[in-house]
């Protein structure tokens, strides 16, 4: 058997949009290899996710069970191994998510096969999978050849277009026993305190603050600006590490990759690891008191000035414009 197998990402019962992007990447590889495109979903109740995962798969494998929500590595591993055993694919693709960052490398080790994480370009040469992946925080692009059976890759979000919707030829339920309790047990899942405004990941506008704010006491400048714009709040890593805001707000390589129309970076220097998270932002505005800051090489518009003085006037004018 052969095929390119694409695992969709299910969040709270719905299909994560990035799943359809990975299907696009998978379809190109399947065409180049002359092999079928296969899909797979693992989750609690897959009814709506399976309807949304319309990647034109020749088969869509479904692994359902209560124990897949919340996520645990053991359960995801067992499910993926069962699907892979059922269809023996030559390439398997996954969304690059906080969960796949944990369990897919373990899957690679268990299957003793090649994996590259967080890929942005994928192609085939003969039977080899050839991928590009940003390294050194994004300052350098690496090209890698991936070998083994199957060859594995996780794919960065917001790089590929979502695939055109077309239904799967057939769905196949795969029965996977609940894994025996292991050495790791989930006690509970603690959601970050709900913040007002839109969620970072889906936000059209994001106001993001960095160390340049100078302290937690000044964080209200960011919140007020975000409220004025109806924007989500983001932050750089030092801000999350210092506990000014929960790390669920962190944008970047080790935080969330965001896809807004407008990203306002305030007091953020523009380190490559931060920029890695905003590569898909359409328009970037930077407010920074250092005209030489790297963020100005990514930003489309910039203000050189002290954010504590720029932001109040900016927010006031935004409110005015939005109410008129």
């Amino acid at each position, binding site marked *: 058997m052969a095929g390119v197998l694409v695992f969709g990402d299910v969040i709270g019962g719905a299909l994560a949009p990035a799943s359809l992007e990975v299907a696009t990447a998978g379809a190109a590889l399947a065409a180049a290899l002359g092999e079928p495109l296969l899909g797979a979903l693992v989750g609690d109740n897959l009814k709506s996710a399976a309807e949304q995962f319309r990647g034109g798969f020749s088969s869509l494998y479904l692994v359902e069970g209560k124990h897949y929500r*919340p996520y645990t590595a053991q359960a995801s591993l067992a499910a993926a191994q069962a699907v892979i055993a059922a269809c023996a694919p030559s390439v398997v693709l996954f969304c690059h998510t906080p969960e796949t960052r*944990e369990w897919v490398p373990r899957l690679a080790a268990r299957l003793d096969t090649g994996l590259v994480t967080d890929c942005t370009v994928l192609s085939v040469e003969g039977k080899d999978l050839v991928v590009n992946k940003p390294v050194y925080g994004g300052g350098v692009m690496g090209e890698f050849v991936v070998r083994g059976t199957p060859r594995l890759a996780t794919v960065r979000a917001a790089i590929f277009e979502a695939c055109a919707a077309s239904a799967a030829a057939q769905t196949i339920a795969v029965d996977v026993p609940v894994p025996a309790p292991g050495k790791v047990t989930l006690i509970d899942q603690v959601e970050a305190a709900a913040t007002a405004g839109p969620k970072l990941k889906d936000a059209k506008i994001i106001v993001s603050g960095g160390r340049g704010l100078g302290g937690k006491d000044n964080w209200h400048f960011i919140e007020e600006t975000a409220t004025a714009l109806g924007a989500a709040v983001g932050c750089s890593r030092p801000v999350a590490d210092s506990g000014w805001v929960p790390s669920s707000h962190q944008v970047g390589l080790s935080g969330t990759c965001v896809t807004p129309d407008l990203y306002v970076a305030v007091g953020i220097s523009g380190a490559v690891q931060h920029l890695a998270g905003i590569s898909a932002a359409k328009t970037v505005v930077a407010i920074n008191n250092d005209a030489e800051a790297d963020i100005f090489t990514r930003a489309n518009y910039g*203000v050189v000035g002290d954010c504590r003085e720029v932001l109040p006037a900016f927010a006031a004018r*935004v409110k005015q*414009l939005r109410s008129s």
Partner: protein
Amino acid sequence: MNIVVTIKQVADPNIPPSHIQLDPSGKRIVSPFGIPPVMNGYDANALEEALRLKEKHGGKVTALGLGDDSSRESLKRAIAMGADTAMLINDPDLLNADSAGVGRALAAAIRKIGSFDLILCGRQASDTDGGQVLHWLAEALDVAAVTPVAKIESDDGKQLTVHRLVEEGYQRLRVELPALLGVSSEINEPRFPPMRGTMAAGRAMIPGWKASDLGLQPSAAKVELRNLQIQLRTSKAELIAGSSPAEQGTALADKLHELGFI
């Protein structure tokens, strides 16, 4: 509690792309003159957490690295911070190993070191951004692995309760030892080496091990690096002028209005 911390030495992640240099093979970043390589940031967090556990429970902290001879510097820093011993796997044949090769070499070294209760790794190395080696290591030693860990909430020497970051918060997990954790930067602020530590590091002997010392068989790479390409950005933002910061703020809002964002 006996803890092994894996320490990778990397080119300083703060070097901007415009200053990064590649060696003649085009496959390796070399630190530009005057900017010494550093201990991988998350590995420093892992070491700090190990030292805190040792201060609470006693036991031993061992730092383990794989790299060229210059990587001894980071292992010395580990000793200066408070690690009891350090070893380096410095076989030239392993320097270009993929994640599988590095993970297995680290596993073989840990078997040689002896028993352990906990292995702490960084969640990822800042040069590879791979986040893989810890899992190959865990699989080779057949222990559970949890990553990225932002907090060890409680520990009693037999099991830990840890916080694993998820997108919208964290999971609380009970982990039976022995186990491996991938440590994230939220967990702590690594200490600066105290004076007596620096002196201990000066005296420390760091043994170097070869693949043959570890009984490692050569294995074909599953992932092969073809080349690296530095990503330069040269564009420049259009700056919004104004006679005062407040005026600039107002002008920026007007600009965004004009562009249709407001």
